[in-house]
């Protein structure tokens, strides 16, 4: 690697890529060449930076200047003013929404400064397609240590000491899983990485795979040594083509460097990894279903025991760890389990990555120490709810999780504490919802997802989720009956306690948690036939409140069905025979005049 005067760390993650970072790269390259700066200024396309909300983003190193929302037209000014004359461009810097002050350096922006990077320690710092850059950041040192200096028991001891728990959601101690597999009898064993990140609203695994694929491969090598496995699979969902591409590049490079294959680093240990692409089935995130899928079968779970540690893939002892879990492993081996456990709460150690999205100012990926409060996550890092709306709840854990309302915002991030308030840690999706989100509709949304993804093997999940969905749909359509809530509760309990796998057992969580905290909204839907958040079209009257209408005509201009009559200085009128209930008028009205 040549050391240049300036390194432009341009984000090439999925978010920035779709807002045009590739065009920015070409424009910058042209300008740099035009000024003969190719020897001095180097563009490095990195994986996801995490601050997806303001993409495309670029960090100029070594100064650490953070630029956001860069357009190709800005390239000329960037080169002229910043890279040649040394005057950074304020226009493209981050502005603190609270006081409008410009914050030039990335490390000073609240979104970044409250974070602790462990699983994501290399994000935005290395080119994920160049193995040397990973090695320069102590990459594969841990693998070398594990292979040459440590016994399987030493590795497991460090893992247990670190307290690292499965980051896929269930929170089972990784070290314990490894010990079971190590002790299991068998000549052939497997190490699997679960990169089938299916929870809607979770994208931390994608980001890690795109920005630092080698950390996951290194984690797998260490796991392989611990249980004496020689073959591994990374089960990645096909919706993540960039992650698959980068993983394959990383595996190829690791093979060329002798870090995968026979006799790794002269240790005599053999291990090989292959990427296996999923084909779009949420249930394949469940461990036994994932293994069936690799075997080329329908991805249906099987009852446990036998546990995968004894009889997993092709009935051989197998461990399955999530991407984020594996990305933490190399540092635990390098710095020791005690170091890792120095951060966190009594039962949850280390850090957790969250994908913050929904109605929040700073959408993106954040890594925080366990024990951080949810309030800090949403307000200090996330910047709170935009457009002066009111916070309503944050949904943690996706379709298996639940909502955390305002009064529990001070709950620390900890597997047990979050479960107590009715949500789960889950894989780390954190979707913020403001007061325009209907909680009944939200529960309906998750149930729709679950019943669609239910594999159909066991009756409670297959039929139960359908019945729950029907009840919720009726409520949203204004056809809810007295007694529906009680029936809903009963069904949820049955599905929870009698389903075969985790998908069904947790399927009712979104309903139960919204019932617990927002029962009044359910009641309003059933008894008053109104939707307090005005999200359910069937319960909106589509009439204009003449007392609130300011006669601005915005609704008229936006109506795709020509159903609104309006003239200047007159209250708008909606023709219900033409209205298609698309909510366009409601969304446009700034005065809340659509009833």
């Amino acid at each position, binding site marked *: 690697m040549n050391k240049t005067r300036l390194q432009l760390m341009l984000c090439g993650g*999925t*978010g920035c*890529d*779709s*807002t045009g970072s590739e065009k920015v790269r070409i424009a910058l390259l042209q300008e740099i060449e035009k000024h003969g700066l190719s020897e001095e200024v180097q563009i490095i396309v990195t994986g996801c930076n995490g601050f*997806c*909300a303001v*993409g495309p983003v670029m960090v100029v190193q070594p100064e650490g200047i953070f630029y956001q929302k860069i357009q190709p037209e800005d390239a000329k000014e960037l080169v002229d003013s910043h890279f040649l004359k040394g005057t950074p461009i304020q226009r493209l810097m981050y502005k603190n929404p609270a006081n409008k002050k410009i914050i030039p350096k990335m490390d000073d922006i609240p979104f970044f400064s409250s974070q602790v990077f462990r699983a994501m320690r290399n994000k935005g710092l290395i080119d994920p397609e160049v193995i040397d850059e990973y090695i320069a950041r102590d990459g594969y040192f841990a693998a070398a240590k594990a292979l040459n200096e440590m016994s399987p028991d030493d590795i497991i001891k460090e893992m247990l000491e670190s307290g690292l728990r499965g980051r896929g959601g269930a929170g089972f101690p990784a070290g314990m899983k490894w010990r079971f597999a190590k002790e299991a009898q068998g000549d052939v064993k497997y190490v699997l990485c679960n990169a089938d*990140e*299916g*929870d*809607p*609203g*979770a*994208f931390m695994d*994608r*980001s890690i795979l795109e920005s630092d694929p080698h950390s996951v491969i290194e984690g797998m090598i260490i796991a392989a040594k611990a249980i004496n496995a020689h073959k591994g699979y990374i089960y990645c969902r*096909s*919706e*993540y083509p960039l992650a698959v591409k980068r993983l394959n590049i990383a595996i190829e490079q690791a093979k060329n460097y002798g870090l995968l294959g026979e006799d790794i680093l002269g240790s005599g240990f053999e291990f090989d990894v292959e990427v296996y*692409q*999923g*084909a*779009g*089935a*949420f249930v394949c995130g469940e461990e036994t279903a994932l293994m069936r*899928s*690799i*075997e*080329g*079968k*329908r*991805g249906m779970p099987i009852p446990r025991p036998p546990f995968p540690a004894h009889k997993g893939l*092709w009935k051989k002892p197998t461990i399955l760890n999530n991407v984020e879990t594996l990305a933490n492993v190399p540092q635990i081996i390098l710095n020791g389990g005690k170091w890792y456990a120095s951060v966190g709460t009594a039962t949850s150690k280390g850090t957790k990555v969250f*994908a913050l*999205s*929904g*109605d929040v100012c700073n*959408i*993106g990926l954040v890594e925080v120490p366990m024990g951080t409060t949810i309030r800090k996550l949403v307000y200090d890092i996330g910047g709170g709810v935009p457009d002066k709306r009111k916070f309503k709840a944050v*949904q943690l854990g*996706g379709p298996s999780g639940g909502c955390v309302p305002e009064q529990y915002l001070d709950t620390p991030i900890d597997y047990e504490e979050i479960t107590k308030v009715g949500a789960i840690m889950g894989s780390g*999706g954190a*979707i913020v*919802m403001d007061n325009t*989100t209907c909680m009944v509709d939200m529960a309906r*949304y*998750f149930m729709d*997802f679950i019943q669609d993804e239910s*594999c159909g093997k066991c009756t409670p999940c297959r039929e139960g989720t359908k019945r729950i969905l029907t009840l919720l749909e009726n409520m949203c359509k204004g056809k809810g009956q007295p007694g529906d809530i009680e029936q809903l509760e009963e069904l949820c309990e049955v599905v929870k306690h009698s389903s075969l796998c985790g998908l069904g057992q947790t399927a009712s969580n979104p309903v139960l948690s919204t019932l617990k905290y927002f029962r009044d909204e359910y009641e309003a839907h059933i008894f008053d036939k109104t939707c307090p958040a005005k999200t359910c079209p069937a319960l909106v009257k589509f009439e204009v409140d003449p007392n609130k209408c300011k006669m601005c005509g915005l609704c008229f201009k*936006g109506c*795709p*069905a020509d159903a609104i009559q309006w003239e200047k200085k007159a209250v708008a009128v909606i023709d219900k025979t033409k209205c*298609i209930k*698309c*909510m*366009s008028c409601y*969304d446009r009205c700034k005065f809340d005049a659509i009833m």
Partner: protein
Amino acid sequence: MKNSIRPKHPDITSEMWDTIDEIIAKWKNTPGSVITVLRECQDVVRYLPSELLHYISYGMGLPLSQVFGVATFYSFFSLTPKGRHTIKVCTGTACYVKGIKETINRIYGKYNLKEGGTTEDRRFSLEGVRCLGACGLAPVMVVNKDVHGAVSADKVVQILEKYE
């Protein structure tokens, strides 16, 4: 495999059959490779007609029930023809909260196209997909390989009209 057993199908040309034979030959002896074979074959034909599934089952030496079982289980596989342009609308939570439902309704209003369907002229196919992991751009729509962020109901038709 001999040409004589290739079934006739209007959507599969003889070059496509050659590629399909190569795919089957490549994976025939790898256990658990049926999903990969189906994916690669779907890339060639753009969907999986039942004649093709019969052919794969024969070529791979697998029971037809297993091949059909896998093809119908995973949402990635389609047994019906696809349009020239595939619209994928993200129905993940973040996109849902940000209003993808209105966008989908607008697509239906304009093209009479529902999730999982194809327009009569085979111009568009619409798929609802689970989280694309681009929640920062919600609501997200992918047309072929182009990602479109912040696709409000008002913008969607304008974007789609560019795809003939």
